[in-house]
């Protein structure tokens, strides 16, 4: 096989993996803290739309990124409210988020930039100087959009934080045994809420990447299951940031391969190639035995023994006490 073809395949694979990668890294943090968010698909979709909108309004892709992160945090805050504070069913709350993401993005799109075709400022690739000239791995690893480097850096930082810092230890603790963490004096509720918000920010970022670094357009419903594939990556990567990112890259490679297969083997109906990443996700889930890596308290609501959240929460509680309840 032609080396140029391989380089193109791998470079494309990395480029196609980062939308899933961002979302998966965020979900890793959220799940390590014990909260599962199946709604990141909806957050990604909203993020994609807001990124396109923001980029058009501000004229710069970074404006789009900022708006997408804000939107992701806002939607995730809803999930945090229901899943963490109200202790409702986390799966159902996530499903609501998927639906809301669909609705908000579609509705907003048709009211704003969907009316007429518009140019969306997007990210170009950013070669890292001399590194990009290294034969073979240079074009693959060091000639990507800025967000790709951001994703890789985030994965490394997350891995370090989880293993070697007090914050990471607390996060791991609240996902494994929140009552023990509570007894150690950790504010489980606010930490979990923050983890959920981080997950939402990253999912929004993933959606932004999709719209303004990968496809360079917004199309309704464009996430096409990547948010769920991201959750599969978390399981496949055993909740460790670097492995999760690697799993996302594997899916990116599968996507890059499947696109090329369509042109290489035109006799085979293209739909079978499109199916590949989804089938891969199912196979990955079957064979990654969950074993002991899953955070033991994942998905289970936790009622702290005492009030938490500091002054704002206290004020809200006093206000509530005055309402006719």
């Amino acid at each position: 096989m032609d080396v140029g073809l391989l380089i193109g395949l791998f470079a494309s694979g990395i480029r196609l993996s980062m939308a899933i990668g961002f979302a998966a890294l965020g979900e890793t943090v959220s799940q390590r803290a014990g909260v599962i968010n199946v709604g990141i698909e909806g957050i990604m979709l909203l993020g994609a739309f807001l990124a396109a909108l923001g980029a058009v309004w501000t004229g710069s892709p970074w404006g789009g990124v900022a708006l997408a992160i804000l939107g992701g945090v806002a939607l995730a805050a809803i999930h945090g409210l229901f899943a963490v504070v109200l202790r409702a069913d986390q799966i159902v709350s996530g499903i609501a988020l998927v639906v809301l993401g669909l609705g908000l993005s579609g509705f907003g799109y048709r009211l704003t930039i969907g009316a007429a075709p518009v140019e969306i400022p997007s990210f170009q690739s950013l070669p890292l100087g001399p590194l990009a000239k290294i034969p073979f791995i240079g074009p693959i690893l060091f000639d990507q959009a800025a967000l790709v480097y951001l994703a890789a850096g985030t994965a490394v930082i997350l891995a370090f934080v989880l293993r070697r810092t007090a914050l990471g230890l607390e996060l791991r603790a609240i996902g494994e045994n929140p009552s023990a963490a509570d007894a150690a004096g950790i504010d489980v509720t606010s930490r979990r809420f923050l983890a959920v918000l981080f997950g939402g920010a990253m999912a929004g970022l993933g959606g932004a990447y999709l719209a303004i670094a990968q496809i360079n357009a917004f199309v309704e419903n464009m996430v096409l299951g990547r948010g769920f594939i991201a959750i599969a990556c978390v399981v496949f990567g055993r909740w460790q940031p670097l492995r999760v990112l690697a799993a996302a890259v594997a899916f990116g490679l599968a996507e890059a391969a499947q696109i090329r297969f369509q042109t290489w083997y035109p006799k085979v109906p293209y739909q079978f190639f499109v199916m590949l990443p989804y089938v891969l996700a199912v196979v990955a889930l079957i064979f990654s035995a969950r074993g002991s890596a899953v955070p033991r308290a994942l998905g289970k609501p936790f009622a702290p023994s005492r009030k938490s959240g500091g002054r704002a929460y206290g004020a809200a509680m006093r206000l509530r006490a005055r309402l006719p309840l």
Partner: protein
Amino acid sequence: MISRPSVKASENRPAAEFAAGRPLLAVRGVTKVFGATVASDAVDLEVWPGEIVGILGENGAGKSTLMNMIAGLIAPDAGEIVLDGEGVVFASPRDAAAAGIGMVHQHFKLIGSLTVAENIALGDPRWGRGVLRFEPLRREVGALAAALGMAVDFDRRVDELAVGEQQRVEILKVLSRRPRLLILDEPTAVLTQDERPGLFRMMAELAARGTAVIIISHKLEDILETCKRVVVMRGGRVVDAAPVSGRSRADLVRMIVGENLPNVSRGAKADAPSAPLMTVEALTIGRPNGTRAVEGASFTLMFREILGLCGVDGNGQSELIHALSGMLRPLSGRVVYHLEGAPAGAWLDAAALRRLGLCHIPEDRHRHGILSGFPLTANYLLTHLGLRDFNRSGWLRQRTIRSRVTEAVAAFEVKAAGPQAIMSHLSGGNQQKLVLARELAAAPRIVIAAHPTRGLDIRTIAFVKQQLLRMREGGAGILLLSADLADIWEIADRVVVMTNGRLRGPVAVADTTLQEVGHWMTTQ
């Protein structure tokens, strides 16, 4: 229930040698209400440095709630906590720890998948607010462990340690903060007879150095051995307090319950020749992680007897019980059930065994045995799905179920609103009574009872024991698993001891002593 005002602190002072100076801890009028339940009702308590105080009371008396408030886990609704003369308000357990109060919980607050070092570092800002610093931790806490005679491996995951070792980690974690007041909640529940003296020595040593120690325990022997003073709680109030010297176990029971309990009499075992009900032959059972939980176990359960299965938690008893009751397939060996209609050779699952006349009172009813969000009828039906009266070719006969449950509820004195009451609305004791009603209703020939009295109040415990004896009189063979030797000694005819997956015995209770069996529980 006696309704007396809480004992005032002034009536509850230790002997003169301690009363010098001021108390280390003074709890005044502390109240805590959960919904409609008053968990703590204007409680007064004083603890002096250097003394060991025992807190006694039935389940639900409010002991743990009170201790949780002192240790900062729960905030009191009213009253004050005064530490060394200054009023304190704890916003979290971290504040309490910083103020010098440490608590070792009954259910360890350890994170299984983290290492010993990580568990000790959790929540303690001394070991780093940003990046964690394990070297200083290893040095300082290692020195502390050595001084206390504890061996500790900082890098092992906590869930790989034995239960006794885990408790040592929990204690080390608390002691590493150098508390002035140490609270121990049921510390001997998981220890063997041989490990208890070590714990008591540590408590005495701490007290000698001026640390105040509070111990909650329902094991009256432990209280009698270690404490100078006892405080008795009931219904959220302190109802009695007294020095320990000169008291007997019976005295303590009377203080807790308020009256003398009827003696549960075992009754003489008839000399009639006995027939086997269940023969276990070289049973080997594995754990999910590949290790062996039970190795070559063999014994026979006879007609009309109670066979006590003793052993410290975690030595394979749960797995043995699960295999015998049809929940778990063994790796090798077999069990022969001498019941009418039992097919030879085939492995029988729980439903098949129930049809043959075996019943199982589960160790952890919340995990396996009940459906808490469902009504009593569903819970009763759970183990009677094969009964033709209830299930006619797949169609449920709801009316029959309801009337049968109503009868059972009356017969076993279960306090519930009706057969459709939701299980989780019943108290723990009443839930267990329903489980008993359900299991014993069909007059089973074999009863497998795993920790049937765990977590229950003294009255319900006596009721359960009476029911088991009644079944024995009726000819049933009962395998009784319990970690409480005193309980087993009261009603069992023979005992068999389990250590590290291996069985020793059976031996008639009359032919051995509590101490000897306790000793067997710890040797290989």
